[in-house]
């Protein structure tokens, strides 16, 4: 059995771990930067709260103190430590961004694959609804929805997720339309699989590639949206430690020279959104 055919047909062997990491870095340089930034955020979100105090404790005598070795990011007008609040907020903002992306990706993919694989009236209705939803700018739609649902973190998450679901529906549907024509789908039909089994076990896993990269992008946009909504006073409310809320509160003090109250949380929002964007962009550039 050692014919050349057999040798050529052997399974590719996994390489050493270091070599793999290096080749990943080479292939996705931007995403690698994004991943490094993301890891800092993730570590902060997980372990940060262990090292800082109460984000709500005020100390009027220390109000609006500039950054120093005691208050790394200074204090706000109530004398709350901006660094403490920024670290505490990391958990909320990162989790909210990822959860929104996950909800939108899962709901959108499931709806998209059913629409794409089965077609027909359901597909028609879904497409028209996504048309309507996409006609609104996502931020404005989320704003309206939160206003209607009421201010709470779960409502913000649901509202922003709804605004982004159509993107996933369209991506996965388009891919499912192509995948359902492939031969393995016919082969699965012959093997006695039902239509739903084919839709979810065969077509769905093969239609998800564009959704993965989109999810990274959407997570970044979602962080911006949530912070933006909070900045406008909708959704997450003060005194919750959240970057958008902090920027909104600090914005009043910038005029008086206390730039640190708004700048640091603002920069944290930008860097996180940028990290998601870098990851998503680089993976998307690689193409499906």
């Amino acid at each position: 059995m050692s014919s050349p055919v057999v040798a050529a047909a052997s399974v590719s062997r996994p390489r050493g771990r270091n070599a793999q990491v290096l080749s990943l870095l080479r292939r996705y340089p931007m995403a690698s930067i994004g991943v490094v930034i993301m890891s800092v955020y993730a570590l902060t979100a997980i372990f940060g709260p262990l090292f800082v105090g109460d984000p709500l404790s005020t100390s009027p005598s220390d109000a609006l103190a500039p950054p120093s070795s005691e208050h790394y990011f200074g204090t706000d007008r109530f004398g709350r430590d901006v660094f403490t609040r920024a670290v505490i907020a990391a958990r909320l903002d990162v989790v909210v961004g990822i959860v929104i992306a996950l909800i939108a990706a899962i709901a959108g993919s499931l709806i998209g694959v059913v629409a794409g694989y089965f077609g027909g009236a359901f597909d028609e209705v879904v497409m028209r609804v996504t048309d309507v939803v996409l006609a609104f700018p996502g931020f404005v739609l989320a704003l309206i929805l939160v206003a209607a649902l009421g201010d709470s973190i779960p409502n913000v998450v649901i509202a922003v997720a709804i605004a982004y679901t159509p993107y996933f529906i369209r991506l996965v549907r388009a891919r499912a339309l192509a995948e359902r024509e492939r031969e393995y789908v016919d082969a699965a039909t012959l093997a006695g699989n039902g239509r739903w089994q084919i839709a979810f076990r065969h077509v769905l896993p093969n239609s998800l590639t564009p959704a993965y990269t989109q999810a990274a992008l959407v997570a970044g946009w979602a962080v911006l949206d949530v912070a933006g909504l909070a900045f406008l006073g909708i959704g997450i409310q003060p005194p919750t430690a959240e970057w958008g809320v902090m920027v909104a509160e600090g914005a009043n003090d910038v005029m008086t020279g206390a730039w640190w109250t708004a700048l640091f949380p603002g920069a944290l929002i930008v860097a996180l959104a940028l990290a998601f964007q870098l990851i998503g962009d680089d993976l998307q550039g690689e193409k499906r």
Partner: protein
Amino acid sequence: MSLLDVRGLSVGIAGKEELLLRDVTLSLQPGEIQGVVGESGSGKTMASLALLGLLPPSVELRGGTAAIGGRTVLDASRRGVTRQVGDLTMVFQNPRGALNPTMKVGHQVRRVLTKVRGKSKGEATTETVALLRRVGIPGAERVAGSYPHQLSGGMCQRVVIAMALAYRPRVLIADEPTTGLDVTVQAQIFDLLRELVEETNCGVLFITHDLGAVAEMCDRVSVLYAGQLMETGTTIETFEQPRHPYTRFLLESLSPQESSRLTSTEEAGVDFSLPGCRFAHRCAHAFERCSDFPQLFQAGPQHLYSCFLGEEEDDVAAQRSQLA
């Protein structure tokens, strides 16, 4: 009684007159490998998709019946006739396309065993490895845990054949199973198909345009052109005494000395809505009767052809013998 019996199968594009398959008749005996040959676009694949009930939505069944072991599996006049799982399966042209890229190949074989043959998970896992070994895959356990993109084309085709073995169909349609594989692998795949037939006594429709492969593999051969069955008979009879001008052309095109080059169907173009013989406009022997659709004429116990010319020739021969 034949294992597979297809009568008058006609298939057309929805909303149009043209027939992509016109009145195609096939029969297949248990344990027989029958070649189905023809150029690209001659309807070979369309015929198999029709049998499998996998016609694309833009194509519709216009007429005909098909029965497997005497039980009707397809009837154009009655919708909803269903085949039983296990009757019929297909080895697809493109092995990579026929495997789900996101599922380990072992799992795909195992699913056939559990779904079609009703095996338990444990049995199926053992048998999967045994099947993969059967089709000549070295390191079957390891390969079972691989994804299709990690395997070569030849390996993928073996996996697909293993799935067909797992299926144990009564009729297997092999649609150009060796296209894109090198000759050594091709020979191994042929051997596997033969073994499958010997072991399960199933019938195989072997779709190809490789006449060499037909001569090597097939007991009988059916020649299709532009959706019309031109000639069918035992491989020896058909190749040595072709009765249809198209079959002769096809065979002549193999010999290098042949000067009269046959233009390809794409160059010549085929009008699928014409009522007469589909080959008439390219046939050197065409005469007035060819504007009618020729039914099948008998040239031997198993040898049928679709051409008026043979009848004329027979008449001429009969006259000659009378004169003599």
